[in-house]
C-alpha cells in the first residue's frame, strides 16, 4: 500500500465552548500542580522565620508575583467550576447542546467572577 497521508485534524477543526473548556480544564490542572508547589514553598519560607519570609513577600508583591497569584486564583476557580460541571455530567445530566454551551459559559465567566471576588475580599476592599 502506498504511503497514505494523514488528513489534518486539530489544525483545521473548529473550536467551540465545550472543547475550549475541556482543554482549559487540562491546562489549569497542570498550572495547579505547580501552584501547589509554590504554595508549599511559601509556607516553608514562613516556617524559616521573619527575615526569610521577607524575601518571598517581596517577590509576591512584585508585578510578576501579583500576576502569578491572580493567575493561580483564576486557575483554581476555573478548575473547581469545570470539575463541578464534569460531576454533573457524570451523573448523566447537561448533555443537550444548548445546556453544554450555557454551563461552559458559566464556567468561563464564573471563574473570572470568582477571581475578582477573592481579590476584593482578600484585599479587604469590602
Amino acid at each position, binding site marked *: 500500500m*502506498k*504511503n*497514505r*497521508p*494523514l*488528513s*489534518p*485534524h*486539530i*489544525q*483545521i*477543526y*473548529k473550536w*467551540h465552548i*465545550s*472543547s475550549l473548556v*475541556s*482543554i482549559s480544564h487540562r491546562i489549569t490542572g497542570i498550572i495547579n500542580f505547580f501552584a501547589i508547589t509554590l504554595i508549599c514553598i511559601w509556607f516553608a519560607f514562613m516556617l524559616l522565620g521573619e527575615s526569610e519570609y521577607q524575601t518571598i513577600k517581596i517577590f509576591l508583591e512584585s508585578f510578576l508575583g501579583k500576576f502569578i497569584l491572580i493567575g493561580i486564583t483564576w486557575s483554581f476557580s476555573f478548575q473547581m467550576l469545570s470539575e463541578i460541571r*464534569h460531576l454533573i*455530567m*457524570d*451523573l*448523566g445530566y447537561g*448533555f*443537550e*447542546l444548548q445546556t*453544554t454551551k450555557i454551563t461552559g459559559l458559566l464556567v468561563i465567566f464564573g471563574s473570572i467572577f470568582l477571581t475578582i471576588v477573592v481579590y476584593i475580599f482578600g484585599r479587604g476592599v469590602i
Partner: protein
Amino acid sequence: MVQLSLPKNSEIKKGKYFKDKTGSKNLRKVNIYRWDPSTDEGPRIDTYEVDMDNCPSKVLDILNKIKNEIDSTITYRRSCAHGVCGSCAMNMGGKNGLACTTPHAEIDGDIDIYPLPHLKVKKDLIGDLDGLYKQYQSIEPWLKNNSTKETTEIYQSKEDRAKLDGAYECIMCACCSTSCPSYWWNGDKYLGPAVLLQAYRWIIDSRDEERKARLKKVADELKLYRCHTILNCTNACPKGLNPAKAIAEIKKMLATANV
C-alpha cells in the same frame, strides 16, 4: 503520545487555482483537499471559483458542480444526497458533517473542504474507515437472544422501545468519531463515540440477553474511559444524536451495576 503536527508526508501545499470562466458576479472560493495516490506528490489544496447564482443550497451541490463543470478529477463519496446513507461525511468549514445536508450559506468566508480528520487518506476527500468498521464489528452489533426460538416473536414494551430512540437512528457516517480528539490520538484502542453509541444501543435493548457480557466488554480504561466529554461528537452529529450522553450512560451503568 499526542502528536499535534502532521507527519512529513501529510504536509499540505498550495495547489492549482481554477479561475471562474462563467463571468458570474456572485463567486465563492472553495478550497478542497486533494491527494492523488497515483503520483508521488503530497497533499495540496486546490482553489475553485464557483458561480453561486447557479448552484443549489448544499455543500454537496458545490462539489457536484465542480466535478461536472470545472474539474472532473475530484473524488468524494456520495450516494443518497438526503442525509440517510452517510457517505458524504467530510469536514466543511472546520466542522464535520454530511455534505448533502450542510448548507453552504452557514459557512462564512471561503469554503474549506477536507476529508474527515485524522484518517489515512485514500484519495482526495475519501478517508480510510476500516479501523472504525473493525471496532464496530468487535462490539457484535446484533441481537443476542438464546432463550427464544428464531421463529418466535420477542415482545418489547413501548417504554423499552423508547429507550432505543436517539441510538438506532445512527447511520455510521463517522462524523462524530473523527471529530473526537481522544479518538484522533487513541483511535487504535479507544472505541470512539460512533461505536460506543452502538454498544449502548445493544446494552439497553430489553430483548438482548447478553447485557452483562456487553458491559464487561466495553468496561476498559482505553476502550471507554478515554472519553473526556469534549463534546465534539454531539456537536458534529448530522442526525442530532448525542453520543456523549450515551457514553455517560454506559459509565453510569458500570458505576452502579455489579458487572
